[in-house]
């Protein structure tokens, strides 16, 4: 596995505020990497360092093994959270201008810009001024200007804000397509649904420190707490009495007198196997599913844990 981006003990301090404390992370090539964290945790600081807008106080960033240098700017596409366009400029001019700043020739910029406009179904807006467009349209143009120069590394900060569900999907598809074509994508977001949807691995930054990282699946596994959703046909009382004290009912739902769904958490190290063994004689099991924690729960749990640790 090749590493597209590596941060090595990055430290950034502002006058009255520590933005990043020894943050290290590795983003595998051709993957989608989620950068999570509460507001003010240091995500934007890290992103700005990668984009060479600011520099780290210590530590280093490597892109494809090379330490960060000015020529990397042309290989990165950056969609900041605080973003906008020149309102008085025409869509086409704007895309070409921003692409030229990334090092494309004018002709190349125009050709690629037009292709992208076709892809996102906004070719008809090429000669319109940005101020005449809706927010969603403007966001599409913003997205195009981020990807038009074929960056190897894409850094997207809240890419879906301002999009309706249809366009969110459209952009999601484009991101996945870019990944399949070889791009590496770093996605900073608060939207945990997106993370579960498209991110392969994540890092969670809290209070300037990285507190969690790894693949999404592994993290969910690590955070799962023997919670299961069990659907069965039979007597509720019978089900409940089988292993008294062996599990805790978190939630229950009954379709009718006979069909029930229970959310349970196994206690005292009891395995699913031994639980099923006890329960099978009493009722007819229709389905059993492990309930993995959502990334949102992981996020909240981790941040709260950090807070508690801090308070102690």
């Amino acid at each position: 596995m090749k590493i597209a981006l590596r941060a090595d003990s990055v430290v950034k301090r502002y006058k009255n505020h520590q933005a990043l404390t020894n943050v290290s992370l590795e983003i595998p090539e051709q993957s989608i990497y989620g950068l999570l964290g509460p507001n003010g945790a240091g995500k934007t600081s890290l992103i700005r360092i990668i984009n060479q807008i600011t520099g780290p106080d210590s530590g280093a960033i490597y892109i494809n093994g090379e330490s960060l240098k000015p020529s990397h700017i042309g290989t990165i596409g950056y969609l900041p959270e605080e973003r906008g366009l020149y309102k008085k400029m025409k869509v086409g001019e704007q895309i070409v201008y921003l692409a030229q700043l990334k090092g494309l020739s004018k002709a190349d910029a125009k050709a690629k810009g037009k292709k992208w406009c076709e892809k996102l179904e906004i070719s008809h807006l090429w000669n319109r001024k940005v101020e005449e467009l809706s927010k969603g349209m403007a966001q599409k143009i913003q997205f195009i200007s981020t990807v038009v120069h074929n960056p190897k590394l894409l850094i997207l900060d809240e890419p879906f804000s301002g999009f309706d569900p249809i366009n969110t999907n459209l952009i999601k598809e484009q991101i996945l397509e870019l990944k399949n074509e070889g791009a590496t994508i770093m996605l900073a977001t608060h939207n945990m649904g997106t993370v579960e949807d498209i991110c392969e691995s994540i890092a969670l930054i809290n209070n300037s420190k990285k507190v969690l990282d790894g693949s999404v699946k592994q993290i969910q596994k690590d955070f799962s707490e023997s919670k299961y959703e069990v659907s069965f046909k039979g007597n509720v009382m019978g089900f409940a009495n089988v292993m008294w004290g062996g599990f805790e009912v978190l939630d229950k739902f009954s379709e009718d007198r006979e069909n029930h769904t229970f959310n349970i958490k196994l206690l005292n190290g009891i395995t699913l196997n031994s639980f099923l063994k006890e329960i099978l004689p009493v009722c007819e099991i229709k389905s059993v599913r492990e309930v993995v924690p959502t990334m949102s729960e992981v996020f909240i749990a981790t941040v709260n844990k950090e807070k508690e640790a801090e308070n102690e």
Partner: protein
Amino acid sequence: MNKIGLIIGREYLSRVRKKSFLILTIVVPILMVGLLVGAAWIGQADVGEKKVHIVDSNYFVQPNDFKDTKQCKFSFSHGTQAEAKASVESGEFDLALWLPERLYHHESAFLYFDKEPGEVVKRMLSGQLNRFGELIKVNYLRDSSGLQLSLEQFDEIKKDVRLIFEHYADDSKTGLAKVRWGVGFAFSVLIYMFIFLYGVQVMRGVIEEKTNRIVEVIVSSVKPFELMMGKIVGIMCVGLTQLTIWVIIGTTLFSIALVTIFPEFTYDPEVIAQEMAQISTNVDPSVANEIQVSIPENEVIETILYKINWPFMIGLFVFYFIGGYLLYGALFAAIGAAVDNEADTQQFMLPITLPLVFGFVIAQSMALNPDGPAGFWFAQIPFTSPVVMMVKAPFGFDNSGWPYVLSMVLLVITFICATWIAGKIYRIGILMYGKKPSWKEMYKWLFYKA
């Protein structure tokens, strides 16, 4: 470097293509010329008839050489300079034109007055004197070199006779100082206006990029310093374009106005053609082809031409124009970067506009005392020198060159420092949103690491 070019191009084109630019560029010179012509029209109307005494020290003048006009009635006598002055002092004549002996060697002629005549009379007298001067020179050269005239001699003839306007008793009461001041002040006004108009445009441009949040997209592609310089230089090019168009339209319109509305300001082409015909019969034919009938279009400018070193003034103007703009443009850019909206700029604008306005006031006051110490010192201080130097330069610094050099060096050093400081503030400011920073915070930004 290539990226700065792109930024300059965008800043330039986005402004030049605006309708407001086009309108301003066309309307302003029309308005200015309209005002000038209007003022001249009114000035012309209230000139009464002047009695002009032509005192000839050499028996040059023939009765028909000066022709009476609406404004002037001429009478002639032979006499000395003192007699000329006396004729005005006694009140017998309004004006006395004294023609010195060696007029053909382009010695200046003098016009003595008690009350300085208006521009219309001055121009008319200069015009008639020049025609007369040519005649005298032709006669002189004919006498001294036979009938053949060389091109050099013809050029000699075409040189205007300088007419010096003097009060009969007090030669400091001349309009010359005012003319000099006026020329300098016109340049000053242009520089002052330009710095203000376009400096504020730089600031607005920076605020715009900040408020519409494009700035972070841009600085992920170019260095903040490049973005800042691109903006400043791009807007400077807009200003230079506008100025060039103003000058072209203005002079064209003014010339047209002069020829059509005030024909008496100009030579009568027929008279000149006749004279030319007379001369050319005596001139080598090969030379004659090169001679063209020239009609001086603007006597005011012609008059000013003798007293003002134009190439020097224009050179100075371009230098202080660009130098002053770059200095203030950088500071305006820094302000724009520090705030979120235009309402917040006032607090920071004041210390920047104050020296500029102060310089302008000094430049105005120099009409009364152009050689005072204020003119010297404020022409040296870089924050006022672009405005003040233009007024000071026509009077000079007692013929020494070093004050110019010092002033220019100081301006260059200051604008380099200002750009450096502005770059630091800009770099931090453009990515800061929310609270308006204090002076103290902005000072701290200077020492932040990149």
